[in-house]
């Protein structure tokens, strides 16, 4: 009995000791990749730009405040015929093992997205177990992914975090951008209409200066990163950009809006009143009339008045309901603009086809082959918006109205 037990223990310890920790990765041997940029070079190869965190310069509060002498991130780039090759080639430059599990941002160059599309390299991200599926994807706008990834940013020391946070808060407060993960893009492209949206990002300023430490030592950085527009992806390729109202309208239809402001005209003054949304919900439903598909969009929004540049007496209930009508009109206009632009590009970014498939699976089989080319561009969309003003801030009348009365 006893020698058996010893045998068991020996048997158990040998593999444990022999195993020698195959998958072990010490923290000091890891190069944590915060963001990855993918571009297309002129000779048709992929250019991979990796933004690697220098931990000591980001979190170095304790050992004599680092961060000032050296930048918080280091950039390595490499080219290759495919992603894996480029990534492995980059290893010859980095002193550590490239570690992608904390890559929260994938930046795709505009050229690559337009010419070759996202589909070709996305599999590498999907297949690799290290990558997060929740990684956010952005497309550069009027710049290359390399320049975007190289840019140093103040406040949020890691540029990838700055991009993510910018996206998140601009979606919450402004509503003209949308945070999409790699997985969402993939799922969208698998759906029958093969269409998706990805937020755009651009670099304002001098690309050469952006990667220098000087850029974050200025109180007014010369080069900054800014969210800019929404890219329309069709069959994996970038076909068009949506800006301003159209971008906002897209976000409205996708029901991804988390807060925005709507300016309405009042008494001939342009954009005189700012309306802040608080709660909103958009419902899309599809019908079939006489074999012709149609979509109805129903948006309901509640919000408050943020600013009035003209004297208005909102103690009057009628005024409020007129304002609500104005708000409805503006939202309706945005939505319509978005749909028109999508229809001209024959790209059903809103998932209307998917909606029809869900509700009328039998008819969908008939519509499917010609959906993007025939049915969607001609689709009749019925938009209804219900807007409510619930609060008006701390005051009722604007102080402008008192000034006017005094005059």
């Amino acid at each position: 009995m006893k020698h058996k037990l010893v045998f068991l223990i020996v048997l158990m310890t040998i593999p444990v000791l022999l195993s020698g920790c195959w998958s072990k990765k010490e923290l000091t041997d890891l190069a944590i990749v915060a963001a990855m940029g993918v571009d297309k070079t002129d000779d048709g190869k992929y250019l991979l730009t990796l933004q690697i965190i220098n931990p000591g310069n980001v979190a170095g509060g304790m050992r004599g405040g680092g961060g000032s002498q050296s930048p918080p991130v280091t950039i390595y780039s490499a080219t290759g015929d495919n992603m894996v090759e480029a990534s492995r080639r980059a290893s010859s430059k980095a002193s550590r093992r490239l570690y992608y599990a904390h890559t929260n941002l994938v930046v795709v160059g505009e050229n690559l997205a337009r010419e070759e599309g996202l589909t070709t390299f996305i599999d590498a991200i999907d297949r690799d177990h290290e990558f997060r599926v929740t990684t956010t994807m952005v497309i550069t706008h009027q710049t290359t992914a390399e320049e975007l990834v190289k840019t140093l940013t103040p406040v949020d020391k890691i540029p990838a975090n700055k991009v993510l946070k910018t996206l998140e808060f601009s979606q919450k407060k402004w509503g003209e951008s949308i945070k999409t993960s790699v997985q969402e893009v993939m799922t969208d492209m698998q759906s029958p209409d093969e269409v998706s949206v990805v937020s755009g990002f651009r670099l304002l300023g001098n690309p050469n200066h952006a990667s220098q430490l000087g850029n974050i030592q200025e109180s007014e950085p010369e080069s900054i990163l800014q969210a800019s527009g929404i890219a329309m992806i069709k069959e994996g390729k970038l076909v068009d950009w949506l800006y301003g109202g159209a971008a906002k309208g897209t976000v409205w239809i996708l029901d991804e809006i988390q807060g925005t402001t709507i300016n309405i005209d009042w008494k001939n003054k342009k954009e005189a009143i700012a309306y802040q949304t608080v709660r909103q919900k958009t419902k899309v439903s599809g019908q079939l009339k006489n074999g012709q598909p149609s979509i109805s969009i129903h948006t309901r929004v509640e919000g408050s008045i943020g600013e009035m540049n003209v004297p208005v007496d909102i103690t009057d209930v009628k005024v409020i309901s007129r304002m609500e009508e104005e708000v409805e009109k503006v939202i309706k206009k945005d939505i319509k603009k978005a749909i028109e632009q999508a229809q001209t590009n024959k790209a059903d970014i809103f998932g209307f086809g998917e909606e029809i498939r869900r509700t009328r699976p039998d008819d969908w089989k008939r519509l499917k082959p010609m959906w993007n080319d025939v049915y969607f561009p001609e689709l009749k969309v019925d938009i209804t918006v219900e807007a409510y003003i619930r609060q008006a801030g701390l005051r009722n009348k604007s102080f402008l109205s008192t000034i006017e009365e005094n005059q």
Partner: protein
Amino acid sequence: MSSFFKGRKPKKNRQRDAENQAAVQSEDHIQESLSANLDVIRQKTGNSSDIVVRHLKMGRNSDVKSAIVYIEGIVNNQSIQEFLLQSMMKVDDKEKLNRDDALELISEDMMSVGNVSSFNTWEDLFLSLMAGDTLVLVDGIAKVLSACTKGGEKRAISESTTQMVVRGPKGAFTESIDTNTSMVRRIIKTPDLWMESLKVGRVTKTDVTLMYIHGIANDQIVKEVRQRLNKIDIDSILESGYIEQLIEDQTMTPFPTIFNTERPDVVAGNLFEGRIAIFVDGTPFVLIAPAVFIQFFQSAEDYYVRYDIATSVRLLRILMFFISLIAPATFVAVTTFHQEMVPTTLIVAIAAQREAVPFPGFVEALLMELTFEILREAGIRLPKAIGSAVSIVGALVIGQAAVQASIVSPAMVIIVSITAIASFATPSFDMAISVRLLRFLFMIGAATFGFYGIILILLMMVVHLCSLRSFGVPYMAPFAPFTPVNNGDTFIRLPWWTLRQRPRLISANTVREGKNQRPGPPASRGMVNRDFKEGGNNEA
């Protein structure tokens, strides 16, 4: 008590014969000659200086020679003085005495001590002499009288030092077995509190007392305990730990399968759950068997404070148990295998701390844990005055210098400190010490296979725990096998009125409370039934 011992005697005699054949030569009976007897006593004890022999002459002509023999220090001098010497030396009594009925007269008339017995074998004589009795020998009679004069210096009952409570009785057991059993007897006033005594240890002849409540304890378990105790054949028993290691079900386990305590109220509480207490002379630690896993997380106070408090404290202890078991292992696993689980900012912070540390994570953790164990051990062994110096040095070494010298990272210091504090929260020292051991196993698992290593060792531990038994009772009861009614007093403690049953696998008689013990105000004082005059209104 004596009947039990007699049952064993023949066997013991035989052993003794075999050993001492040359010396005693089968002369195991006391002789008639007083001087010969005294010579034997002197010879057997090697003329030890603490043996006192007082010669007395009694009888009408002072012709009856007699002697009193006792051992200095373990007898109560006062009672020898007052009840033996004084009464035996009184003149008028001396007169009556003659050779033939001397012993009867002495025992019936002269000795005013409670417990007097007589024997005629050397073995009994020495047993009783060494236990602190006083022997009376009379010339010409091949018998000896023994008067119970046990006494000597004892430690007074003091407050418990190992199992402290805020609320609850303070007194702890002492080194004297009689004091200890009497303390429990004083709590449980029933004739059903049965005790069986036996002497264990060939040389030390240590008193061991088995205590249980007849009718509540399971007879089979009592029988099992008795059997195992009888099987012990060892020269000495110096502490109850000897007994524990000789009677436990399995020795190849880090987990304690017998509970020990130095609190009489804990013993009483366990007796009422049908368990058996084993008192050992010379130690304040009383063994309690059978023990189950969850018992080591229960403190006496849990039963004295209200149930909601007790439950939360117990849950906290279980949490602490797991923290002290796997916190360092988890840290090693996360930082060397599963960095993706940690939020980016945190992993960057940890990585920044580790930049300058030359060791791999596992070595770092091992280093710190070992340092801590060394400090703890040193702190216990050192005299109190120096002990505090150790903790100062330790705090400086662990807390400051090691970090500044870039030998360890601050995060590791935090983990080790949490682990250390958590390991102190387990009420039972035995369980805490086995966790200390297992922690290293978990760390090795984590260092080689990350979380997979941890879960493998956890699975092994669970399987091992489930395979353990304590005197036939599954160690993980009442979880596995699951006994729903007994789960009210495990991770949680329900109010007393719901705990109507004793542990089913341990106790023979499970019902311990009457029905409807739920307290409540009399109906007339409540908001409802204000007009209900008849019932339960005590106030005039």
